[in-house]
C-alpha cells in the first residue's frame, strides 16, 4: 500500500509550502490547519483499514526489505499516528489563538509541520537507522519551536536541550554500528528474525549492545536517571504547542522502548533489559512525583509529572519480562500511553489558559480561575483527577490494568510504588487547584482568547471521560496491538514477504 508514505509526504510538503508562504500569516494558518486536519482524517482511516486488513507496508523506491527502507503500519503504529495527529491538530487550534505575530514571523508554522513529520516518521518506520533520522528531524522541529521568537531564557535552555540531544544522537549511531557488526542488519523485522535464533555468547553480546540503545531511548523518554533535562526545557515552549510536546515527544521514546526491546530483540537473555527497565521505572515514578511536589511554577509541576507518568509506562514495558505476561503487560502499556497523551496534553493547554487569565505561571501569584472561567476550571479538575487515577476517568482504568499485571506477576514493590505515586500525584494536583484556581484573582487584563483556547482542550477532556466509561473498543484494540508486538511473526512476514520467511523456515531443522 503506497499511500502509507502520505504520513510523511504531507507534513514535508506542507512545511515547504508554509516556508514559501512566509509573511502571509492568514494563508499560513489556513494551510497549516487544512494539512493537519486532512492528515488526521487519513490516519484514522488508516487505523480502521489496518485493524481490518492487517499490517500494511511500503518499501521506499521499491527496494526490497531488508535492503530498502520499509515503512510499516501495524496497530500500534496506527494508534500512535492517530494520537499524534489528533493532539497535533488540537494543539494547533489552541496555538492559533495564543501565538504572537512575532512567533509567526519566526517560522512557527513550517517548524510545527517539521515536528509532526519527525514524530510521524518515528512511529511509522520499520528500520532502526530511519528511527535515528526521525529523531533528528523531530529534534530540529522541537528546537525551532522552543526558540521561536525567543527571549533570553528560551535560548539558554534551548542550548542545553540541543547539547543533551546531540550526545544522545551520537550514542544512537554508535549503538547502531555495534548492532550492525553483530547482527548484520538494521531492519527491525530482520533483526527480530535473526536474533530469535541466537543463543550463548553471541546473544549476550547483542544484549550488551542493546544497552547502548537503552540509554538513548531512556534519554528520549526521560526515564530515571536521564530525566534532568526535561523540567528545564518544557516550561519554555509556547502555550498550545507545549501540549503536543508534553503528550508526544517523550512518548516517542516510550514507543521506541516498546518496539525495540519487546518486539525487535528476541535473543536469549533479552529479559535482562526489561528487568532493568522495571527497576528504573520505580525510581522514575517516585522521583518524578517528588520533584513535582516541591515546584511552585505550574508549568514545572506539570513537567515533573510527565516524568513520573513515563515511569508507569516503562513499568508496563518492564513487566513484559515475564514471557507469560508479556501480552497483557504490553496491552496495559498501550492503553496507558493513549490515556496519558490525551490527559497530559489537555492539562498543559488548560494550564496555559489559566496562566493567560491570571497573568503568571507562579502558583503563589495565580488564583481565582474558578471565578474568572468556571468551565476551564472544571475541565482542569477532571483532567487532574484522571491523571491521578480517580474513577470514572481513563486514568483509573489504565492504572488498574497495569497494577493487575504487576500483582499477577508478584511484583509487590513496584505496585506499591505505583500506588504511592498516584497518591502524591493527587496531592500535587490539589496544590495546583488550591493555589491557581481557588482564591482571589490578581488584578490585570485577562487573556481575551481564553474561550477559543479552552474549546479544543475540552475535546481531549471529553476523550478521557469516554475512555473511562466506554473502554471496550480501545481495550480490544490494545490487546490486538500487543499480540502483534509480542508475537512478531505477522510483522516479519509483512515486511520481509512470505518468500523470505518461508525460506528461513525451510532452512530450520
Amino acid at each position, binding site marked *: 500500500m503506497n499511500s502509507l508514505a502520505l504520513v510523511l509526504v504531507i507534513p514535508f510538503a506542507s512545511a515547504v509550502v508554509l516556508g514559501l508562504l512566509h509573511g502571509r500569516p492568514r494563508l499560513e494558518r489556513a494551510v497549516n490547519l487544512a494539512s493537519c486536519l486532512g492528515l488526521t482524517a487519513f490516519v484514522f482511516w488508516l487505523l480502521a483499514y489496518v485493524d481490518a486488513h492487517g499490517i500494511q507496508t511500503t518499501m521506499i523506491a521499491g527496494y526490497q526489505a531488508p535492503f530498502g527502507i520499509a515503512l510499516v503500519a501495524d496497530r500500534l503504529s496506527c494508534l500512535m499516528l492517530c494520537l499524534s495527529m489528533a493532539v497535533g491538530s488540537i494543539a494547533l487550534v489552541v496555538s492559533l489563538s495564543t501565538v504572537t505575530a512575532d512567533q509567526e514571523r519566526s517560522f512557527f508554522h513550517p517548524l510545527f509541520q517539521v515536528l509532526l513529520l519527525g514524530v510521524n516518521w518515528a512511529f511509522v518506520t520499520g528500520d532502526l537507522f530511519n528511527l535515528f533520522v526521525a529523531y533528528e528531524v523531530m529534534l530540529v522541529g522541537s528546537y525551532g519551536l522552543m526558540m521561536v521568537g525567543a527571549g533570553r531564557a528560551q535560548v*539558554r535552555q534551548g*542550548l542545553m536541550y540541543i547539547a543533551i540531544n*546531540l550526545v544522545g544522537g551520537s550514542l544512537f549511531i554508535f549503538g547502531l*554500528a555495534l548492532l550492525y*557488526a553483530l547482527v548484520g542488519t538494521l531492519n527491525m523485522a530482520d533483526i527480530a528474525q535473526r536474533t530469535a535464533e541466537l543463543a550463548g555468547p553471541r546473544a549476550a553480546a547483542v544484549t550488551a549492545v542493546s544497552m547502548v540503545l537503552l540509554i538513548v531511548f531512556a534519554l528520549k523518554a526521560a526515564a530515571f536517571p536521564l530525566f534532568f533535562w526535561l523540567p528545564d526545557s518544557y516550561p519554555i515552549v509556547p502555550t498550545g504547542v507545549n501540549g503536543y510536546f508534553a503528550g508526544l515527544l517523550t512518548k516517542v521514546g516510550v514507543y521506541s522502548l516498546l518496539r525495540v526491546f519487546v518486539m525487535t530483540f528476541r535473543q536469549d537473555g533479552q529479559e535482562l533489559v526489561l528487568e532493568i527497565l522495571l527497576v528504573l521505572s520505580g525510581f522514575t515514578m517516585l522521583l518524578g512525583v517528588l520533584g513535582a511536589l516541591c515546584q511552585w511554577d505550574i508549568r514545572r509541576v506539570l513537567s515533573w509529572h510527565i516524568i513520573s507518568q513515563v515511569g508507569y509506562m516503562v513499568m508496563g514495558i518492564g513487566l513484559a519480562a515475564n514471557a507469560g505476561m508479556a501480552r497483557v503487560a504490553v496491552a496495559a502499556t498501550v492503553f496507558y500511553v493513549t490515556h496519558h497523551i490525551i490527559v497530559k496534553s489537555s492539562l498543559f493547554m488548560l494550564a496555559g489558559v489559566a496562566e493567560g487569565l491570571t497573568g503568571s505561571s507562579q502558583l503563589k501569584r495565580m488564583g481565582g480561575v474558578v471565578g474568572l472561567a468556571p468551565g476551564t476550571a472544571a475541565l482542569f479538575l477532571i483532567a487532574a483527577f484522571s491523571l491521578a487515577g480517580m474513577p470514572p476517568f481513563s486514568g483509573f482504568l489504565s492504572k488498574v490494568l497495569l497494577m493487575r499485571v504487576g500483582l499477577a506477576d508478584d511484583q509487590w514493590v513496584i505496585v506499591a510504588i505505583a500506588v504511592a505515586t498516584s497518591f502524591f500525584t493527587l496531592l500535587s494536583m490539589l496544590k495546583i487547584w488550591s493555589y491557581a484556581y481557588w482564591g482571589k484573582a490578581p488584578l490585570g487584563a485577562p487573556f481575551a482568547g481564553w474561550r477559543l483556547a479552552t474549546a479544543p482542550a475540552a475535546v481531549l477532556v471529553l476523550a478521557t471521560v469516554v475512555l473511562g466509561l466506554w473502554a471496550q473498543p480501545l481495550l480490544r484494540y490494545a490487546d490486538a496491538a500487543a499480540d502483534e508486538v509480542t508475537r512478531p511473526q505477522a510483522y516479519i512476514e509483512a515486511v520481509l514477504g512470505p518468500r523470505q520467511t518461508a525460506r528461513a523456515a525451510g532452512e530450520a531443522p
Partner: protein
Amino acid sequence: MSVLLALAVGVLFGAAVYLILSPHLVRMVIGFGLLSNAVNLAMIASGGFTLRHEAPFVDDSQVVANLMDPLPPDIILTAIVINFAVGALFLIVAYVVYRDFGTANPDKLPPPSDAT
C-alpha cells in the same frame, strides 16, 4: 585494521568527552564534532572494513568478490549531513547565548528557574 580503527575511535571519544565537559561553549562545539567523527569511524569498522576491499561498484559481467559492504558508508553520509546541520544550529545558539549573557561559560549562566 580494526585495531587501528578501535584506537582512533577510543582517542576521539575521550577527547570529545573532555571537550564537551569543559566549561566553554566553543570547546563544546568542537567536542560534538569529534564525537560524531568517532561514531562514524565506529560505523566504518562495523562493516568489516579492510584496505583490501574494493569499492562496491558492480558491472554485470564481473564476478562480485571482495567488495566493501556499502551500507555503513551510506549511513555515515546521512549521519554527517545531520550532524553538520545540528552542529551548525548549536553553534548559532551558542553565539546567541554569548551575545545575550556575555559569557561563554555554561556554569556562569543564570539558573533555569530564574530565567523562565
